[in-house]
């Protein structure tokens, strides 16, 4: 049994059967009418998101498409819980990760290993295995004992990546950064996300339409605060190129 099958067995033993029979509702991440206003300097508000709704379940990958400034990062922050919407809510039926390569929460004074231990404690993950996994994945070796303020940005991103993958999140949030590091590390990331995590839900804010065509089943296109979910990726691509 591959790791991916094992994963799906743990999380959804008979979900497909049950859902088909209408017995157990599938667990989803639902965004319901998300509205986000920002206060602008000099008074007034700017409505960045105006009634966004969508639903993602296990195994589905949703792409967030839009021009720069369309609100993709804001939506990701609201989904992860860092910001709260002005109106509407997010129903999290799945365990959601933080944006994958996000290293902002990792305190500079702490060493890499301190941060690993913190995450493991917080999420009740087995300490030693988490540590070994992250050490193995990042290949940072003894640099894990260095304070994070001395890390290069590449090292920081690799550690952030490894930490977000070390915990079994059911839904991965990705904010424009899919792969980091050198070619070999990129391959590792790719394998980890798209093979070992095949059955996870994914919400990806990305600009590359080729990526969307290859990996995603749904696309949410954001423009001027409004958004619509497309199940037909070809149609989504056509519209995106005209944005």
């Amino acid at each position, binding site marked *: 049994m591959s790791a991916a099958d094992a994963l799906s067995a743990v999380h959804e033993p008979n979900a497909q059967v049950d859902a088909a029979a209408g017995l157990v509702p599938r667990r989803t991440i639902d965004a319901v009418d998300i509205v986000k206003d920002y206060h602008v300097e000099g008074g007034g508000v700017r409505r960045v998101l105006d009634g966004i709704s969508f639903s993602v379940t296990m195994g589905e990958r949703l792409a967030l498409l839009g021009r720069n400034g369309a609100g993709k990062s804001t939506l990701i922050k609201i989904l992860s819980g860092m910001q709260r919407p002005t109106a509407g809510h997010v129903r999290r*039926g*799945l365990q959601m990760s933080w944006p994958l390569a996000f290293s*902002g929460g990792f305190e500079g004074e702490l060493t890499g290993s301190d941060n690993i231990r*913190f995450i493991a*404690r*917080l999420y009740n993950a087995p300490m030693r295995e988490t540590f070994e*996994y992250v050490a193995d994945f990042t290949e940072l070796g003894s640099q894990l004992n260095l304070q994070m303020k001395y890390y290069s940005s590449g090292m920081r991103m690799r550690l952030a990546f490894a930490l977000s993958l070390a915990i079994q999140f059911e839904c991965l949030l990705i904010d424009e950064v899919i792969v980091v590091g050198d070619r070999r590390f990129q391959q590792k990331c790719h*394998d980890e996300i798209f093979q070992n995590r095949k059955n996870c839900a994914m919400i990806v804010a990305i600009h590359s339409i080729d990526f969307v065509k290859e990996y995603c089943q749904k696309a949410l296109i954001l423009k001027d605060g409004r958004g619509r979910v497309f199940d037909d990726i070809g149609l989504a691509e056509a519209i995106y190129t005209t944005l």
Partner: protein
Amino acid sequence: MSSFGAIAPTKTGSFWTGLKVQGRVLYALMVRELMMRYGRNNIGFLWLVLEPMILCAGVIGLRWLIQTHQEHGVPLVALILSGYMPLTLWRHLTNKCVFLLRRNVGMLFHRQVTILDTFVMSMCLEFIGCTLAFIVNYAALIFMGAIDPVKDYGMVVCGWCTMATLATGVGAAIAVLTELYEVSERFIQPLQYLILPLSGFLFMVDWLPDVGQRLVWYMPIIHCFEMIRAGFFGDAVQTHYTPAYPLIFGLVLLAIYLPMLEKVRDHVHYN
């Protein structure tokens, strides 16, 4: 290569499961905060204990030079200890709360961490640290023979906990107000300095004239000092205090400002 890691269950568990999760979250946050504040390079956390020690050592040295034993009927070193340690508690608890939310909002993208957790965690950490410092300094001074043992431990504990409640209440108010009105942060330090002479950390209420005694009753912090001193010196001194006043003051402040923490959260921006 497979990854793993158990996550706290999404379905609502029993009360005890929730409590265990809460405990674990607080512990993780506290260890992180500890590492962050004090680092690994120098003696780190021990500075919290050593700092009052240096003051007391200075005072003992001074007293030995001047050769006076009593100050208004109260031993000098004991007066200093019973004044400075609660003041340290007050200072640490209240100053920690300035801009507390914006410093900790980065933790909120973890689903288990709420804004109340960050507040509780900071307060707990400071309380434990200052209590430890108090105990260590007290034990060291007893060992050196510089002070007499405390007459009434219960009273000291009551006074200490009342001080902690009051300081936490004021801290909650500070945490909320500094996020709502940035300019209020400028007032905190001057106010702390103003409170210093009025707080009673260097004098006892009995030394003041009647008029002074009546006026100073209205400062809740005075009562905490009086309670601790009553514990230290017992019947040797006359103390005036009303325990209910600072307790209720602190609890009312907590009741008002803790719920506001959640509302103020939206004012904090994080990039």
